[in-house]
């Protein structure tokens, strides 16, 4: 691994020279390091770039790290990672991607992650995206596909921390009976950056539940587009919330859609887009913060 990958791993995956559980580090389109453990088997896909990750029943809280790093321009990396989580298994999966450019050429990483959770499985999925380097265009296009079996639970914490010029973020999920999906998205765009975020969640089983909260900050001349579509095909509950802080000439649009195809599907959407409230800044200033410190504190809290 090169030093840029090392820095990305620290920021994106909590790496401190090593990982405690199973892991695979992808660097510039190739596997740099990989390790399986008794409960987590990681194997390269045949015929496709990417991995099959099998988390076996009996796994209890292992942390599985599969970060991907692009550390130079001129690379267009595409990876297919499939996660098969056995019945009742519990694990934390850390993915995330860093893209660094410094030779004037654009770079991109597209990660297609599919999750297949068997009944009763529980996964916490943490995904952070970051761009660093020169002014060359950096793109990260994550696609997440989730299938939750009966009673399975997945909590997805996804964040774009900055430095990403173009992002096309797509998440699709199908929930079985009693399955629960929690999504927390945080998104920051600045300058001329553009980000699209698209969630499609379908609840097919009785007692399924989804709670989707997206918080974003758009600064400068950046553009953001949020779209969510939640469909309830059974007695279920769905909540989506889109909050965006807009600064400068940035633009944000939000398009929520709810479809109840069953009389006992209870679906709610909330959305708020606007500038930082003046009274919030005044309150923090009465505590001794400057205008700039107050704005930074509000944004930091909003995105945490």
């Amino acid at each position: 691994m090169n030093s840029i990958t090392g820095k990305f791993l620290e920021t994106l995956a909590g790496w401190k020279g090593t990982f405690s559980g199973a892991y695979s580090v992808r660097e510039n389109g190739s596997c740099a390091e990989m390790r399986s453990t008794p409960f987590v088997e990681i194997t390269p896909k045949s015929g496709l770039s990417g991995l099959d990750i099998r988390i076996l029943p009996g796994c209890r809280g292992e942390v599985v790290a599969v970060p991907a790093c692009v550390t130079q321009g001129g690379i267009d990396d595409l990876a297919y990672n499939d996660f098969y989580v056995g019945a009742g298994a519990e694990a934390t999966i850390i993915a995330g991607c860093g893209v660094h450019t410094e030779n004037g050429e654009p770079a991109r990483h597209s990660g297609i992650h599919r999750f297949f959770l068997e009944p009763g499985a529980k996964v916490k999925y943490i995904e952070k995206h970051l761009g660093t380097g020169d002014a060359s265009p950096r793109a990260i296009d994550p696609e997440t596909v989730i299938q939750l079996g009966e009673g399975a639970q997945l909590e997805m914490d996804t964040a774009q921390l900055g430095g990403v010029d173009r992002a096309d973020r797509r998440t699709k999920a199908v929930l079985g009976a009693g399955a629960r999906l929690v999504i927390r998205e945080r998104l920051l765009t600045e300058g001329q950056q553009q980000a699209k975020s698209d969630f499609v969640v379908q609840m097919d089983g009785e007692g399924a539940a989804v709670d989707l909260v997206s918080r974003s900050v758009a600064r400068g001349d950046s553009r953001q587009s949020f779209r969510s579509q939640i469909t309830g095909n059974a007695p279920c509950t769905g909540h989506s919330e889109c909050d965006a802080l807009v600064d400068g000439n940035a633009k944000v649009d939000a398009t929520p859609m709810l479809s109840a195809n069953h009389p006992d599907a209870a679906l709610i959407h909330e959305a708020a887009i606007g500038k930082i409230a003046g009274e919030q800044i005044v309150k923090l200033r009465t505590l001794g913060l400057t205008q700039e410190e107050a704005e930074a504190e509000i944004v930091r809290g909003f995105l945490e």
Partner: protein
Amino acid sequence: MLELRDIKWSAPDGTRVLDGVDLTVKSGGLTVITGPNGGGKTTLAKLVAGVEAPESGRILLDGDDITGLDVTQRARKGVCFAFQQPVRFKGIPVRRLLELAAGESLTEVQVCALLNQVGLCGQEYMGRQVDASLSGGEIKRVEIATVLARPGKLFLFDEPEAGIDLWSFSGLISAFQSLRDRRDKALLLISHQERILEIADEIIVLSGGKVAQRGPAPEILPQLMGKGGHCADCGKRKAVFA
């Protein structure tokens, strides 16, 4: 500690709200400003905190003219202000807000002690976000705690009783009394609440944009209570100010 000289302020529609207010608040005491609704009490508090600027007049803190200082500068001079209607913050936990107020990291014990003063359990609330998940009364108490956390010298509370239940209110009274006992600090409350008026060292009645009455609580309070009187039908005490 605090001196206001001939303060005038008008609303955007031109209505004169404060019309030449002069007052002094000394350190080591508790001063309560009271008076009818629309009398300019909240405006006065905002002028002291720097949230609003007077049309004319001067504001002095410890002899220094702070009239031209902005909100941040006044806060750093030691002016602490609890808003009548607290602000909510998505994503900022109670503990973080208290640390911002204190200007330093706080231990769990310190956070619990602050929240306990306003009748909240620290363990239950320090991790909660200061957002809509808190009730009106809870957020009001957090607001008061942010001011109690500050290392200031002038503590200004605008209607601290609003939204506070009776049990927590007793604790709040104790907190104000301990703050009053600090000789280097001044406590200025805006209130209509009888129990707060009762613990005041001095009461200032603001009416029609002017100081209508001022004096020691034992002298002013009976006049205010007499003014309210009792209802002939139900026997309950009438409001002091209509």
